[in-house]
């Protein structure tokens, strides 16, 4: 069965520290990969996405992620975190449906990041 694993459930960092959140997926077909962020009291927002091409993708707010096909990974990075980055981060992969044009997202369980000022 398709799945997404996020190994770090809780991460605590000080401001200016570097961040790397792990994401691994198990799906043998063509994948589209996403990182979403959920700030406290807000809804899921797209941070970045990978469909094809350059495996290093840049998103909003200084985040980037690298797709490594051989490792089935899509890790999220940020060189220097800020207090405002405190949020829950979800990795997701699309799985194509049997009907053309249909798909579903498979989400990881999320990583809660707390940044200390």
């Amino acid at each position, binding site marked *: 069965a398709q799945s997404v694993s996020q190994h770090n459930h809780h991460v605590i960092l000080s401001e200016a520290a570097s961040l790397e959140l792990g994401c691994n997926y198990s799906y043998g077909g063509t994948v589209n990969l996403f990182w979403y962020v959920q700030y406290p009291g807000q*809804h899921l*927002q797209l941070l970045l996405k990978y469909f094809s091409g350059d495996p290093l993708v840049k998103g909003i707010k200084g985040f980037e992620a690298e797709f490594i096909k051989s490792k089935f990974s899509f890790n999220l990075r940020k060189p220097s975190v800020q207090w405002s980055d405190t949020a829950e981060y979800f990795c997701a992969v699309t799985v194509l*449906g049997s009907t053309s044009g249909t798909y579903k*997202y498979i989400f990881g369980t999320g990583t809660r990041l707390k940044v200390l000022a």
Partner: protein
Amino acid sequence: DAGVTQSPTHLIKTRGQQVTLRCSPKSGHDTVSWYQQALGQGPQFIFQYYEEEERQRGNFPDRFSGHQFPNYSSELNVNALLLGDSALYLCASSLIYDYEQYFGPGTRLTVT
């Protein structure tokens, strides 16, 4: 440009009751997906609607059903509520053949 809206924001129901949640997609979107997010978990896919038909379904029992209207809005119905149905229910909209989904704020359902 209005994003995805959901109603109600919060809902409290008793075991055995039925509930209907509503979603209006982002302007221009034609596809609606529903997810259940239990506390401390990632969203779990329930089903996807396009052209008023259920196109894709996750691993949820038949107690979960839905509908899409001609204006692309959608409803999620849950019958015979169980305590385990307590969760945040998320609606996401997109364009068919576009993999990027936009999420609404969710409806928090509590079953007592």
